[in-house]
């Protein structure tokens, strides 16, 4: 039998070799004919729902090219009266079901439905327009879901499930009432969405869109009292140009800075400086853990989507997450502390705007840990399209702007800091630091080629002196979860694991202009590496301004002062919306009060926790401990198989009996109190 690679097909009368194409659509596109499609993405499973890429295959009639395997000798036609009629009719059907609020849609400029209508020359819609309006889902901090604009191509459903392994979106209902929605009609902000935004970046229309904070930024700019500070993430420079029609991957940091200044930003800094801070802290943390063989592998924590995933699904790995703040939050905190002193203004005057290739950064900036003295370390996070919109609104000719430089000191970054923009970059940056700490000064850094690339999982062993480090770099959260499962099962062992949620890392972030093909991400990645080689300093530890920050205020990397400023902590999110129920309210705060939390979750309840709780209350009252003990009913402590679980003063006790609990409570109340109580 002939292998498909040996054959050719006849495409619109021409012979075209099949090559290694596994579906007709790819082959036809390679042949120079761009068939329209909504639901085909090379990264995702074949779906076959939008029916736009139809072709006629001799002997088979009309088929969708995305679902058809090319076979030698196949005679394929992409043009016929019938195909044209059906394609136009399909487009009209989609438009009749669309809310057509194009002038006010954030995706109008990149909307594929609009483009389709233009391409097919749809000049009228013969069908009746849908009247029904469904409510928007505005529950998420990062994304807005508008079902009225959805074409039900399922790209978001598949990328969330297949690439990210999250699966918060799926189809519900039947017939024309079908909707893409989180389970049980919940909002995106109420489910396990990690805010990676990949759903929005594959959405062909504005059905899933990034929540814009542009108005907040303008308001701050126009407030004369405010000092508006921008920090620009490394990957922004290689994405922003595309929105202005410049070639993918070209770096336009100079124009970006100029545009920000022109729009009224008072200071423009580089998140790369924050990345350099992260490198030193995380590098130090890593070397310490590695030497102590404690909490390995160290997982990176710069990606907020990944951090949320660990918090909600792998709380047992929270100790393995680097405690370092992400570059955005490290720099935000530092600037908010230093700039008021430097400028002699009140801290609340500073308005920190970060420009990110990322939607999860919007979520990260709102985390409760990212607030200092009641003020957020970062006030607003805007994505590249939001920045582009501001530039357009200001009437600036982006490409024609005279490139400008970042402000010092926080505008100075090293090559290592810029590498954070791509998958593998954090690892390489940390290695450059660790190499110096663990082995010898580097000078011109070697390229750690093994960690570069676009494969979903890349593993490397790197020798630093006598040590052989086992590294893994993974991007895409489905691949990350597979790796975590393997690590937990003992199938893989690493010392350092870098995780980025988005394909390609931040170059493929959902805050970038939509990257239609993997080649766009590759161009951006290449440009990041190019920038690294062109910078005067390439190791974070060589950043002179960073050295000054340590010398002036922080001391050594990993010092208590550095920890206070640049590290954070995490909390499990396995149970969302857990409520505590106050049972006894009589505790007297002038005494040392013992807190007793009895789990009344399903499993503990079945194991008798309810009865235990009642008898505990009786005994506490009987012994006259009412003012000393504070009893609360809580929900799951996640030791279900070892219930009833009772937490006494933050210590969790398993398989509790009443006697055990009373014993511990008595112990906690203390020797001098207890006799009083029992002598009654």
């Amino acid at each position, binding site marked *: 039998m002939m292998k498909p690679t040996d054959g050719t097909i006849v495409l619109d009368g021409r012979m075209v070799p099949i090559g290694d194409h596994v579906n007709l659509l790819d082959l036809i596109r390679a042949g120079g004919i761009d068939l329209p499609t909504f639901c085909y993405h090379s990264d995702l499973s*074949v*779906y*076959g*729902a*939008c*029916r*736009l890429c*139809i072709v006629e295959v001799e002997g088979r*009639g*009309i088929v*969708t090219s995305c*679902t058809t*395997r090319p076979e030698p000798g196949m005679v394929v036609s992409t043009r016929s009266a*019938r195909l044209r*009629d*059906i394609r136009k*009719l*399909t487009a009209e*059907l*989609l438009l*009749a*079901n669309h809310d057509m609020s194009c002038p006010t849609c954030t995706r109008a400029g990149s909307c594929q439905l609009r483009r389709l209508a233009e391409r097919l020359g749809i000049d009228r819609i*013969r*069908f*009746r327009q849908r009247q029904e309006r469904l409510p928007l889902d505005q529950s998420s901090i990062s994304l807005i879901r508008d079902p009225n604009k959805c*074409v*039900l191509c*399922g790209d978001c459903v598949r990328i969330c499930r297949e690439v990210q392994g999250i699966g918060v979106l*799926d*189809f519900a*209902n*039947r*017939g*024309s*009432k*079908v909707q893409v929605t989180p389970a049980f009609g919940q909002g995106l902000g109420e489910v396990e969405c990690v805010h990676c935004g990949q759903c929005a970046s594959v959405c062909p229309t504005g059905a899933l869109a990034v929540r814009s904070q542009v108005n907040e930024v303008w308001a701050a700019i126009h407030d004369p009292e405010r000092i508006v500070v921008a920090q620009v993430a490394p990957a922004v420079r290689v994405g922003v140009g595309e929105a202005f029609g410049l070639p993918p991957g070209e770096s336009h940091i100079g124009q970006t800075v100029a545009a920000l200044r022109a729009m009224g930003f008072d200071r423009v800094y580089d998140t790369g400086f924050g990345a350099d801070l992260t490198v030193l802290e995380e590098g130090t943390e890593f070397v310490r853990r590695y030497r102590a063989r404690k909490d390995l592998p160290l997982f990176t924590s710069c990606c907020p989507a990944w951090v949320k995933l660990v918090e909600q699904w792998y709380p047992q790995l929270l100790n393995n997450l680097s405690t370092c703040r992400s570059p955005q939050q490290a720099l935000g905190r530092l600037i908010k502390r230093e700039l008021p002193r430097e400028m002699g203004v009140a801290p609340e005057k500073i308005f920190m705007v970060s420009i990110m290739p990322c939607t999860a950064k919007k979520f990260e900036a709102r985390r409760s840990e990212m607030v200092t003295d009641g003020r957020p370390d970062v006030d607003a996070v805007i994505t590249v399209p939001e920045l582009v919109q501001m530039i357009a609104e200001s009437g600036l000719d982006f490409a024609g702007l005279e490139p400008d430089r970042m402000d010092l000191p926080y505008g100075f970054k090293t090559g290592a800091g810029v590498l954070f923009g791509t998958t593998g970059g954090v690892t390489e940056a940390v290695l450059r630091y660790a190499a110096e700490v663990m082995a010898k000064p580097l000078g011109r850094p070697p390229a750690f080629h093994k960690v570069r690339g676009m494969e979903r999982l890349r593993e490397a062993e790197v020798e630093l002196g006598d040590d052989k480090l086992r590294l893994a770099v993974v991007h895409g959260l489905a691949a990350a979860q597979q790796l975590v499962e393997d690590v937990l099962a003992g199938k893989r062992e690493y010392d350092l694991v870098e995780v980025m949620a988005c394909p390609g890392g931040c170059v493929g972030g959902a805050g970038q202009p939509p990257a239609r093909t993997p080649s766009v991400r590759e161009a951006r990645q290449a440009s990041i590496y190019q920038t690294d080689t062109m910078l005067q300093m390439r190791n974070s530890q060589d950043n002179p301004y960073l050295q000054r920050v340590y010398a002036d205020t922080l001391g050594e990397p990993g010092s208590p002062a550095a920890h206070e400023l640049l590290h954070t902590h995490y909390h499990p999110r396995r149970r969302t919306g857990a409520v505590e129920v106050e049972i006894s309210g009589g505790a007297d705060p002038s005494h040392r009060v013992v807190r007793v939390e009895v789990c009344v979750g399903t499993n503990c309840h079945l194991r008798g926790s309810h009865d235990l709780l009642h008898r505990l209350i009786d005994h506490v009252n009987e012994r006259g401990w009412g003012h000393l003990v504070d009893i609360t009913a809580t929900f799951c402590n996640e030791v279900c198989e070892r219930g009833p679980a009772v937490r006494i003063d933050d210590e969790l006790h398993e398989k509790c009996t009443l006697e055990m609990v009373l014993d511990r409570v008595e112990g906690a109340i203390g020797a001098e109190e207890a006799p009083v109580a029992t002598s009654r």
Partner: protein
Amino acid sequence: MMTTVNLDRIVKEVDRRLARPTWRVMVCDGTGCVASGSRLVHQRFLDSTEGLDGLAEVKLSGEDLCRPLISRTGCHGLCQMGPLVVIPGDGGAREEIFYCRVTADDVPEIVETTLKGGQPVERLLYRDPRTGTTYRSSAVIPFYANQTRIALADCGHAEPEDIEEYIARGGYAALRRVLTEMKPEQVCEELTASGLRGRGGAGFPTGRKWLATLRAAGSPKYLVCNGDEGDPGAFMDRSLMEGDPHRVLEGAIIAAYASGAGYGYFYIRTEYPLALTRMRKAMADARRLGILGENLFGSGYAFDCEVVEGAGAFVCGEETALLASIEGERGMPRPKPPFPAESGLFGRPTVVNNVETLATVRWILERGAAAFRRHGTPRSPGTKTFALTGKVRNTGLIEVPLGATLRQIVFEVGGGVPDGRKFKAAQIGGPSGGCLGVEHLDMPLDFETLGQVGAMVGSGGIVILDDSTCIVEVARFFMQFTQHESCGKCVLCREGTRQMLWILQDIVEGKAQPGDIELLEQTARAVKVASLCGLGKSAPNPVLSTLTLFRSEYLAHVERLYCPAGVCEALKTFAIDPDLCKGCTLCLQKCPVGAIQGDKRAPHRIDVARCTKCGVCATICRFKAIAAR
């Protein structure tokens, strides 16, 4: 250790028991008869025959049957006349007695007259509604006489929940022979030779499907029985699973063996509680006797299966959606190829067969491919069950050779159209099928000819329409069904059916614009050729076939705002017959919108522009002077 079941011993034992000189009463327990009260009839028989062992006919010594054996059977077919009670003959002089519309109160008389007196109760016998002829036994009733029963052979003639009776009637002998004497390839060959085509609708050759699965790389392989019968008005598969579950199971085990599958799933909708119970019981009983499990009949072949309950989505009858549903995914079709035979359940080679297909397998292996080919047509051999409903005298479950004509089905088996109405059309194949008109009455019904006229065998529902039916309304009904049941995955089916439904609604409501029929037709053709799955591709069939056959009726609605059948409410106009009107003014007083004018004792008139067609006037007129037209 499981010992191999001895079928022959069971056959002998059951024969010995049934051979006693006793009566047997078979009360139909099919869905139709249960709905009309057969469970009460059955209970009354049990109560009334308690202690009847003093009768000459049932005088038995010692063990076993000390009274008439009161059985519940599967669907007997003539649902229209239910509850049905059949008292089988003794194989000799005593003929079968077939009672219709039996109520619990009739039972004492049957016991007295028939069981004690040996005589039929005349008034309960079947009387032909056209000729008035009374028939004593089912074999001679035209409804049955014009059928050929292969899949339904024992349906209504045995206790469906009794595996031993099934074995006594020859059951599982074919399976034993297959497992002990034939290779899987030989079974596939036999099926291919028989020409059996899938009874689920598409008509793919069963033997070829099995062989493709057998030869496909990958393991384990699965067998899936598609019992997700969802067409409105169809109940063939349901009746088979309820009435003869072991026949379906036996076919399934044979299919699994022939296609190399070691495990099977029966996907049955939750709305079929009795079918679920009986299939589960059949599996449990078979497992108990070693007919499911390891080393079946000492052959070394192992097979087991389970029932999966479907939630009733129509689309889950489409095989790839059904597989997704078993996997726990939303029931949405996947593009084919790959076909399930290569990559089906859990990505493994899977053979998916319809219930009726499996129920036909035993017969073919018992009698041979050649015997099967003696029925039906060369390209569509064998028989097909149909659920015959609508405007026909004998509604019910029937089985006729493929290639039988619509005329035979409607007029011979079905007994013609009642109430003096005329046959207008037959909707065949449910919402995926098309309409056949008077010009198709003599067309042979098989896979090819039906496909040529834009209809399909489908799963086999036939709805007969008479001349009081509006054909546009029928098309609208089916379109509403497919739109509601569309999984919503592909644009053409989801949006196309919605727009078609809207146009059809406009037509029956008199709101359609010129050009709407053309748009309807164009959309229908696009949906038909370019939808993702078989359901989408067939959804426009009711519209397209009625547009072909009854275009003038559509045009009448759009151009003249006139419904020829007088069904469409919005197109009705009320008028007062001046010859009948006495001028009593009652209608004038009651009309809620003041649309009626006229003087006392003079004929009144209705102002059509004001009339809201509420019909109050027609209802209250004492002289029948007001009618809608």
